[in-house]
């Protein structure tokens, strides 16, 4: 390994050292010793100098060693590291627009959705409290992405990060899909990854907006509530279409599944229903930018493919969540396989 090493007196001194250098998110960190970092790299079968990718705008190379240091600091175990590395590869795809996503005043976070067998291996919990402190794995993985942004790309508040408000997901914003308790295809499969392969999807996401409807079993009525929340976001935040994620916990999911609705049916329904007339902006104080385009219809989704439907959440409660995009379609959600090259040619012979 080539990173600079520092000797500190003890655990408490390590905290002060990292905080005083601006290397944390404000919370205590796990001191990244060489042994801990090596364990991450060995688990992922990555040499320290392996290039995870190059940030496309500022041309900053990201190596496995540096990413592993930040993962350890975030509390990751070695088995979490492949998820962190793949998420970063996905974030550095051109279409994710990482520089804009991390520097914008809009203040989004990177939402990570984990699919496939790795969820079970790392102990991710897709049920109770799915969008919050549900388990060690998702908490640490989400945090690792933020710490690495801070330390590897200088995404510090007031520095590269020009965020006006931000939201708590900027500490950690990671969930796993509840694949065992749904008839629906996993998000990763919907987005083109073969069944049975672990994958992550990253999306530049605003805070979740929770909905409630426990007074119907009709999928249309349930989804009307989600559509209304998407329209509210269009009116109050950004009218432009982009990737939205919706999280549907078990209670509402079972009603929708029982009616035979697939994720595709849901996406097509919300594509049609989540639309606002530009003139509606005048009702919420934004009349000055309606201009002569009041009759223009803005769809929250540019196509049904832009909706990310995720089965997750605790078993009881008629709740759901709409997770809006940072800013229309300027950024695209990216899905990447973990530890598998799904684009590679199969071996000959």
């Amino acid at each position: 390994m080539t990173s600079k090493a520092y000797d500190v007196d003890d655990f408490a001194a390590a905290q002060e050292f990292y905080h005083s250098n601006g290397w944390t998110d404000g919370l205590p960190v796990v001191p990244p010793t060489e042994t801990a970092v090596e364990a991450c790299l060995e688990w992922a079968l990555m040499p320290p100098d392996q290039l995870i990718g190059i940030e496309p705008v500022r041309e900053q190379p990201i190596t496995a060693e540096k990413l592993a240091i930040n993962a350890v600091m975030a509390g990751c175990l070695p088995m979490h590291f492949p998820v962190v590395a793949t998420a970063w590869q996905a974030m550095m795809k051109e279409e994710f627009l990482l520089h804009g996503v991390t520097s914008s005043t809009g203040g989004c976070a990177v939402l990570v959705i984990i699919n496939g067998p790795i969820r079970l291996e790392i102990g991710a919990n897709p049920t109770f409290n799915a969008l919050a402190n549900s388990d060690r794995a998702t908490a640490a993985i989400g945090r690792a992405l933020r710490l690495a942004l801070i330390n590897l790309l200088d995404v510090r508040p007031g520095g590269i990060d020009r965020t006006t408000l931000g939201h708590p997901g900027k500490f950690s914003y990671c969930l796993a899909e509840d694949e065992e308790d749904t008839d629906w295809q996993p998000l990763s499969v919907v987005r083109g990854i073969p069944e049975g392969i672990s994958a992550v999807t990253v999306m530049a996401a605003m805070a979740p907006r929770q909905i409630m409807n426990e007074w119907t079993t009709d999928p249309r009525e349930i989804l009307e509530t989600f559509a209304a929340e998407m329209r509210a976001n269009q009116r109050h935040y950004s009218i432009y279409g982009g990737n939205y994620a919706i999280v549907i916990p078990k209670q509402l999911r079972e009603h929708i599944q029982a009616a035979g609705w697939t994720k595709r049916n849901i996406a097509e329904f919300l594509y049609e229903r989540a639309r606002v007339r530009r003139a509606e902006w005048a009702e919420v104080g934004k009349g000055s930018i309606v201009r002569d385009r009041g009759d223009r219809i803005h769809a929250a989704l540019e196509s049904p493919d832009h909706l990310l439907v995720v089965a997750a959440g605790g078993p009881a409660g008629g709740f759901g969540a709409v997770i809006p995009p940072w800013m229309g379609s300027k950024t695209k959600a990216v899905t990447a396989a973990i530890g598998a090259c799904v684009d590679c040619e199969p071996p000959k012979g």
Partner: protein
Amino acid sequence: MTLRVLDPTNEMKGVGGQPAARPSSLQGKTVGFISNGKEGTKAYFGHLERMLRDELGVAHIICRTKSNYSAPAEAAIVDEIKRWQAVVTGVGD
């Protein structure tokens, strides 16, 4: 017990670019404005143009607007920069 811990920052800096030499005066020079396209840039750059012309003697102002306010300027705009003596960008909410 002493702990040996590692530096989490990016010690391998990217290629990046070097700042151009600063002009000693803007008198008679060409200055480019690269707007991010947001509403607030119109008044800002309008005011700045008057100041640069009236107070510093700038001869020409070239205005260009990015198509995506969160992404770098298009290659065609970047290509024009070498014909300017100064550029103002990175502002405008």
